[in-house]
């Protein structure tokens, strides 16, 4: 499952559609989150909040280099070391270097989609470090040797029986399919890791330019563990996660958990400012912050810059009819769903991801759900245009579109085409196969245009 690529989206999706357990899990999960999300939104003015949130995010994108500069200065002053990584490879190298110079053997890791983007775990394991994922969902898929299928609920595709069998096999626990029991097994196994880890690695939901702080939203408490128990903490985040000031945070505290899981607020919001200082009894003695660019400085200059407003809540995927049907793995890269289509094609290039632009019905549900008003539908359309202009549309489609273009310019040719399709219909049906032409209605004997008086 984990080795699926974006180029194979159609095959991946066709396989996913036939997987009954997956579809059942996806439907149940996305329905539950969807209901909770709409309930939670009733207590706030969603329209006003998202307007405000969108404006704050645009302010940052309009002045991104200045905000990065400001954040770096403030975080450094607070005692953190800030590193800039141009791409995934250099981020991984920087982190491995920090771990090596601190003689680290075992790392406890909090949930971070950016580290999935850079394939950090694989890199660190190759370098000989033991990396333990500590978010329950991430822990499950790490044990299973898979990748996340949802940016917030990584093991959304697994049912309790599968998790029970996995824990029995990998942890030697007695088989149970009670989520309560399974969670306790993970708590016990991971507590020991937290207390003995030489370093903690986390992501961050936001970075505050004014104070140099990192902001992390978590529910389980593992994010708090990895950022405050081990002596060394490394945070990896992408450059656009910055908010101007602490005063902007309440807006996102109201929007992010509601959009993501339908909670009023996550159990924990940690605001971390620098390393442990004289007289402190909390905090890592050494804090490193790795700011990943990976193409974002270029994206912010282009016509899809608004994609970088995204705060990774997952609301767009939970409402997407395609995502809800095929799940996250079919998309073949780190980010699935509508935001994933746009980010994957922007960050990895059209050559390796162009089939993804078809993974949308353009229904616009994602636009309505997005808490920061990213115009996802328009951006998916823009990516479709890019696919054509960069020459990645399938030959048959390009040819068909050219023929159709020529035909609609000439009424004579068009009406000839209409008749031709009528005559050849039974042949076309067989040629195109049941799945293509077979799903279209049979052409009318006399076209509508000719029945007009």
């Amino acid at each position, binding site marked *: 499952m984990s080795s699926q690529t974006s180029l194979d989206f159609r095959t991946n999706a066709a396989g996913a559609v036939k997987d009954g357990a997956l579809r059942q899990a996806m439907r149940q999960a996305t329905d539950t989150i969807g209901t909770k999300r709409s309930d939670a939104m009733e207590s706030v003015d969603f329209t006003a909040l998202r307007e405000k949130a969108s404006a704050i995010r645009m302010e940052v994108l309009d002045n991104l280099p200045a905000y990065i500069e400001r954040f770096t200065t403030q975080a450094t002053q607070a005692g953190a070391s800030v590193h800039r990584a141009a791409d995934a490879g250099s981020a991984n190298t920087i982190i491995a270097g920090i771990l090596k110079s601190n003689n680290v053997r075992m790392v406890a890791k909090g949930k971070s989609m950016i580290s999935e983007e850079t394939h950090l775990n694989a890199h660190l394991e190759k370098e000989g470090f033991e990396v333990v994922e500590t978010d329950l969902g991430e822990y499950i898929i790490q044990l299973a040797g898979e990748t996340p299928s949802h940016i917030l609920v990584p093991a959304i595709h697994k049912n309790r029986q599968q998790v029970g069998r996995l824990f029995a096999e990998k942890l030697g626990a007695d088989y149970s399919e009670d989520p309560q029991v399974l969670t306790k097994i993970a708590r016990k196994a991971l507590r020991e890791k937290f207390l003995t880890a030489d370093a903690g690695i986390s992501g961050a939901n936001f970075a505050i330019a004014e104070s140099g702080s990192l902001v992390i939203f978590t529910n389980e408490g*593992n994010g708090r563990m990895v950022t405050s128990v081990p002596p060394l903490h490394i945070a990896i985040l992408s450059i656009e996660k910055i908010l101007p000031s602490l005063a902007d945070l309440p807006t996102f505290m109201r929007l992010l958990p509601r959009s993501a899981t339908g909670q*009023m607020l996550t159990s924990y919001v940690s605001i971390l400012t620098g390393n442990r200082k004289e007289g402190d009894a909390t905090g890592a003695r050494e804090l490193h912050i790795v700011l990943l660019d990976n193409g974002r400085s270029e994206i912010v200059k282009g016509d899809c810059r608004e994609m970088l407003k995204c705060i990774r809540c997952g609301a767009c995927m939970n409402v997407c009819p395609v995502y809800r049907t095929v799940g996250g793995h079919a998309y073949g890269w780190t980010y699935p769903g509508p935001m994933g289509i746009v980010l994957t094609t922007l960050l990895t290039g059209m050559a390796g991801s162009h089939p993804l632009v078809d993974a949308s019905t353009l229904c616009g549900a994602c636009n309505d759900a997005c808490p920061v008003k990213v115009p996802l539908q328009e951006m998916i359309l823009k990516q479709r245009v890019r696919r054509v202009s960069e020459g990645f549309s399938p030959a048959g489609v390009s040819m068909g579109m050219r023929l159709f273009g020529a035909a609609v310019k000439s009424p004579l040719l068009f009406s000839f085409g209409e008749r031709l399709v009528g005559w050849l219909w039974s042949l076309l049906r067989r040629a195109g196969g049941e799945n293509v032409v077979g799903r279209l209605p049979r052409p009318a004997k006399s076209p509508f245009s000719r029945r007009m008086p």
Partner: protein
Amino acid sequence: MSVNDAVIALFLENAARSAAVVHRAEGAEQLRAKVSEIVGQEGDVFCPLVTELEKTAAADRARLVSDYASALVTVEEVSAAIAETGSIVCASSNGKAVQASLLPSHHVAIVPCDRIFATLDDFFAGFAAALPTNLTIITGPSRTADIELNLVIGVHGPERLDIIVV
């Protein structure tokens, strides 16, 4: 009802909704009684014994331990609370170990009623100058929904959170 009473009531309502167990206590005697009732016969108790309220609350010194990592319960005064979200706030200021609210499986938070802010904005407005190294906003016990979106309380952090407004 004065404005403050309304804020306290909203705080208690929202905290209870986040699955915290809420209590009110008037004065030292009630606080002491409440804490010993909540802590009951559970194992080792950690209490920083820094503030007056903490010294009052931890009357039963026999079961106190100095290492929060091995304690079953932490009893402590927290630095603030927020009514809008029903949250309590733990800060690393004054040498406080914020992990004490994380490692033990039961957290008992004492909230002075004059430290409850109405909204998130009111709370953050107080931090214009400097932030402590660690500022943690806590809303209910530790939880997950990672297995089939089934809510399970008590993952890596406390499975029970008691809040006493004094």
